[in-house]
């Protein structure tokens, strides 16, 4: 477990990156607000605590890899990558604009840390498995992470990949699943309830951790524990609050796929500015 100073540092990065996300979405006037805010602790823990990567040497062969399967949360990834130093934050201005590498959903650009084109839900788990199988074949000790969402668990292909990872005992694979209960049409319990996810993944041969995904201590500890698991892929089911950090967005399905207005942005930034890590 990292020191409380480190936890505070990660919380502070999360706070800053939430503001980055809101600003880039506001500028773009298009995109998803709720998801990136809700899963920020996990993204920050991966990029600034857990993963072995080097922004100065983005194509380093032994880097850990991250696949953002729920690609509509791309602003969270872009915020992390820029903060890590892969590209300047000024690029945020061009999110979703013609010719920008910061596409609405990630478009592969490994030199900027964007490992794979994603966004069509359900595809990322298999892609990450392929990376993990290749790492095993090459006897590399790298770990392959992927992020998923609860809505994504309605895609059949996710389960094809889950079956493969379990069957092949891919213990260099760690998935995080942002369980915020919300999909674009509303609460997923009203549309197609995916629960219980833990039992489903266990039945497919996974080691499952269920955590509060907005609690930085729980996130880093789950990532540490997942690394110790041998002979099984690991799934971190993270209960999160969609829109986390900004009271007007929290747990509101309406903010799944819309961007903040001028007034909302002002309110949100003010609120985020008031937070100091406890």
């Amino acid at each position, binding site marked *: 477990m990292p020191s409380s100073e480190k936890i505070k540092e990660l919380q502070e990065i999360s706070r800053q990156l939430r503001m980055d996300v809101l600003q880039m979405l506001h500028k773009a006037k298009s995109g998803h607000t709720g998801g990136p805010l809700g899963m920020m602790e996990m993204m920050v823990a991966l990029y600034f605590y857990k993963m072995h990567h080097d922004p100065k040497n983005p194509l380093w062969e032994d880097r850990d*890899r991250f696949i953002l399967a729920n690609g509509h949360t791309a602003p969270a990834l872009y915020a992390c990558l820029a903060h890590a130093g892969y590209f300047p934050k000024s690029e945020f201005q061009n999110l979703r604009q013609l010719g920008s590498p910061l596409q609405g959903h990630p*478009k*592969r650009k490994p030199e900027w840390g964007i*490992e*794979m*084109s994603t*966004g*069509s839900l*359900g*595809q990322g*788990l*298999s*892609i*990450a*498995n*392929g*990376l*993990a*199988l*290749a*790492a095993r*074949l*090459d006897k590399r000790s790298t770990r392959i992470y992927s992020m998923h969402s609860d809505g994504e668990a309605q895609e*059949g*292909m996710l389960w*094809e*990949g889950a*079956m*493969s990872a379990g069957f092949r005992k891919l213990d260099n694979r760690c998935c995080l699943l942002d369980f915020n209960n919300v999909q674009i049409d509303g609460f997923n319990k009203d549309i197609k309830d995916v629960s219980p996810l833990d039992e489903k993944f266990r039945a497919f041969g996974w080691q499952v951790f269920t955590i509060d995904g907005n609690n930085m201590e729980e996130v880093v500890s789950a990532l540490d524990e997942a690394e110790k698991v041998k002979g099984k892929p690991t799934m971190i089911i993270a209960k999160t609050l969609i829109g986390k950090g900004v009271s007007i967005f929290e747990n509101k399905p309406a903010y799944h796929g819309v961007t903040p207005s001028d007034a909302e942005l002002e309110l949100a930034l003010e609120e985020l500015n008031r937070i100091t890590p406890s």
Partner: protein
Amino acid sequence: MTDYIATRDAYGKALAKLGEGDSRVVVLDADLSGSTKTGIFAKKFPERFFNMGVAEQDLIGTAAGFALAGKIPFASSFAMFAVGRAWEIVRNSVAYPHLNVKICASHAGLTVGEDGASHQIIEDLALTRVMPGMTVLVPADATETEQMVKAAAAHEGPVYIRLGRSKVPQLFDSSYQFKIGKANVIREGKDILLIACGIMVAPTLEAARTLETQGIAATVVNCASIKPLDADTIIPLAKKIGTVLTLEEHSIIGGLGSAICELLGEFPGIAVHRHGVNDEWGQSAPAEVLLKHYKLMPEDIVERVKKVRGQT
């Protein structure tokens, strides 16, 4: 005496040979390794063979991951499932990020035979060639298949190779040269330009021989590279001869014929006619019965050529 070898058999052997020379080659299948002939590779290199089970989306997605790690994955299944069922995965996880995945799918076309329309994909060339950056290849015989597999491995980027179930005559010897983006003129004549691919090359050649005895001289082009298309070879021939007939064991919508129409459509004085499966479904029957029913035999080609010449 002509040898008959199925292109899928040639693929299996070529793959095993390729695996010897390049350790980056990995092979994935979806529970059809006996039919697609990837089993030959699996036996030789079990650690580099991955049977993904009956899950074609996972097959293609996992192959994409291997390519991201610098491997050269060959993903195989029946064409219906590899590019039919998994089309969106081919598009978004392979073609869009331009990954080095080779999709070599067998049992394409009507000649799957008795399994019927659910297994007979006659739309695969349309589905694959529409994707930017995708290379689409159809071998005519075993020699070409072997060279094509090598060329695909050496090519950086996604490749689709369409393989068949039935045995086809051996048309070319080892002096034959396949190149991505190159069409081969295999017979010359001034009266009509016949452009064929895959299993239609042999009956087209036979039809050309029959036509010769009836005073009609045909140029026959084996157009194995559907995308990129060999404009440098095809355009001057079409301009010179004027009448073109395309031949494919595929829907006439979206396949070789459509590709040739797109290429030649802007030139005045060239008439392009398409011969293939019309806008209808396949059905169960032995392959040879189907080829007769859908008018893909040499005698059907002869008849179509005469009709076309009467029209132009």
